[in-house]
């Protein structure tokens, strides 16, 4: 404890005490958080995703990570807020999002380049007359760079109160190459504002001191209905979400059940 006190005193002396999580000001009131569309998740998140902070949702494929992010977007759009999705690889599906409850007219959808993970397939719909995807680095790095720049523009404008950046299909190596200042800049841009940023990724990327980490997955079970091959259909996924924050000593587990939307539901 003495060592900690000494470090804190040194930071205060150097006027770097804002880096201490204990000195960060708490935003009072219900408006300090952006509730997601689930009561259980809201309770575990202490009301919702904190505004002015960077939170993250991570997990493996089919764990329900995207569903959690879309639920947050849907809840914000239902409250009449403007929301944004930075869709790095153009994976968003509007009909399904509508079924999830997202008010599409309130969504600012920034579509990235539809590219497969091999970086070989380039979307032929990338229209002529716009800037070519060229510049330093590999093609994939340039696509990610554009997504990060878009995120910067959106959070600096303050137009949207919940901004989700989808980095799920970004390879881990490419994410590791991003400089740490990338996320500090985002944190700085939204600090004290009404905007909450949510990073959607396959593995932990970044989170601000007051943000939340939602790790989805683990003990995942796919729910099927119908005993015969011809009548069987997938109805949902049961899994768990582990929610942690800098000021909480232990993570909270929340059971998560997602329902698959298809032609029969």
């Amino acid at each position, binding site marked *: 404890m003495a060592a900690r006190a000494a470090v804190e005193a040194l930071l205060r002396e150097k006027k770097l005490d804002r880096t201490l999580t204990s000195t960060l000001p708490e935003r009072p009131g219900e408006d300090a958080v952006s509730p997601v569309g689930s009561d259980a998740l809201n309770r575990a998140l202490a009301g919702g995703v904190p505004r002015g902070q960077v939170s993250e949702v991570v997990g493996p494929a*089919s764990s329900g990570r995207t569903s959690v992010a*879309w639920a947050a977007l849907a809840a914000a759009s239902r409250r009449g807020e403007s929301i944004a999705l930075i869709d790095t690889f153009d994976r968003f599906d509007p009909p399904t999002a509508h079924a999830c409850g997202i008010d*599409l007219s309130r969504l600012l959808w920034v579509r990235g380049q*539809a590219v*497969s993970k091999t970086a070989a397939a380039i979307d032929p719909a990338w229209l002529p007359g716009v*800037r070519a995807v060229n510049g330093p680095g590999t093609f994939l790095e340039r696509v990610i760079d554009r997504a990060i720049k878009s995120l910067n523009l959106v959070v600096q404008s303050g137009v949207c109160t919940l901004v989700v950046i989808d980095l799920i*299909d970004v390879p881990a190596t490419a994410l590791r190459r991003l400089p740490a200042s990338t996320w500090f800049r985002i944190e700085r841009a939204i600090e004290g504002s009404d905007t909450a940023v949510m990073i959607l990724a396959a593995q932990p990327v970044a989170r601000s001191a007051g943000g939340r980490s939602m790790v989805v997955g683990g003990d995942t079970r796919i729910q099927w209905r119908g005993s015969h091959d011809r009548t069987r259909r997938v109805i*949902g996924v049961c899994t768990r979400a582990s929610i942690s924050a800098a000021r909480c000593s232990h993570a909270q587990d929340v059971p998560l059940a997602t329902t698959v939307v298809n032609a*029969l539901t």
Partner: protein
Amino acid sequence: MFAALYAPSVPAAALAGVARQFTPRFEHLGAVILLDAGGLSRLFGTAQQLGEHLRDALSKLSPGDTIPRVAIASTQTAAALLALGSPGLTVVMPGKEAIVLAPLSVGVLDQFERLSGSGLRASGPPGLQASEPSGWHHPRHTHQASRGKRRAPDNRVLDILGKWGIRTLGALSALPGPDIHERLGDRGAYWQQLARGMDARPMVPWVDDVPFEVSLELEWPIEGLEPLSFVLARLLEPLAEQLERADRGAAAIYTSLRLTTRSVFTRTLQLPAPMRDPKTLRTLILLDLESHPPDAPIDVVRVFIEPTPARVLQWTLLARAQPAPEQVTTLVARLTALMGEGHVGSPGLVDTWKPGAFEMREFHVNHPIDNRPSPNSHPIKESSIAELTSALRRFRCPVPTRVAVHEGRPVRVQTDRQGFSSGAIVQAAGPWRTSGEWWEETGQLASGPAGQQGGWDRDEWDVAMPDGTIYRLVVEREVGQWCLEGVID
């Protein structure tokens, strides 16, 4: 002080020309031109001298046998009625309007209404406004529209006044006001107000159709956007001032650049909301030109703005404040310059069964306030389990895959792409067969999954892989090609 000119034999444009020689503030009341004569005494002397100047100017236009009518009074109504009812020049001292108007015939009120048409009626007393379909219009629209839409007046009041033996304005103004209102309603009270020379509304000066256009011929051709931004700033600032003076905003900006190759490069920007901030307009033009640069140095820069009535903002205190349209438009323009056209906006659903079909719409934040729950809203249930709807992550470029089929069902998936799981299928559900638009030569949808333009005929499967991933697998029935279309997440 107001002056009224009336010369039936002189065209309205010529009358307006005379008025413009004296003051820029004048109004068309049908064939009567009403001038705001306040402050003209320094230029033209007393009211009498001003009247003589006006009469002389009109006499030059009128044929010899007609006498132009000029009236000067402290109220616009008195001036207009005297111009209609008294020949020659009439100058009324302030406060003497009712006395001077008294000998005029009541018919002049009917004539006054005929001439002024809907312009004056619409701004008359509340009762009259309620009985008329027209509301408040911009003066330009009012006057221009009134000429063509003049209707036969309602002479009921005039008939009743005739039966009562009321022949002059003096007799009408002498009647008790409450009794007039009781018997003739709002219209009667309004007529009595006119007969006393009282104004029912302020003057609405005529606004000329000024083109919101500026151009600049450069001494030396410029190349690149940075020097152009200075030129645009110089052009847009006076244009924005002009818009502000006219209470207008820009609905569209036309930027025309004459290049050194003698060709003209034109760009058009349609703005989602009227705006006139020069910095925002310049940023939008530059961002557009950044995406669509001219291919030669620029000789002449011309900016034309299509004006529209300025916005009236009235927000509720009970809802979250929305960002300004300028802010949103600039953000969308910046994002479009970065990501490309068609890659920024709001998704919209289209009326089709085509899987994944959508269209890109313009993003805006001015949504009507509606507190009703949407039919698609999901009420939050109090539960210990977080119940959500699964998302589908759609591969806009479907991933080709090799699929082993046993008894008509996929049993194994193999793909060469990194990051996708391959192997034996644990469980499969399907097929869900859909087809459509096979009757179309080409697809009508602007957007949709790549490679699926036009009709479709396919089977969909939901397959679970050993690592727990659930893919949506499709097979194009015509060609038998299997693809991973998305992952349920």
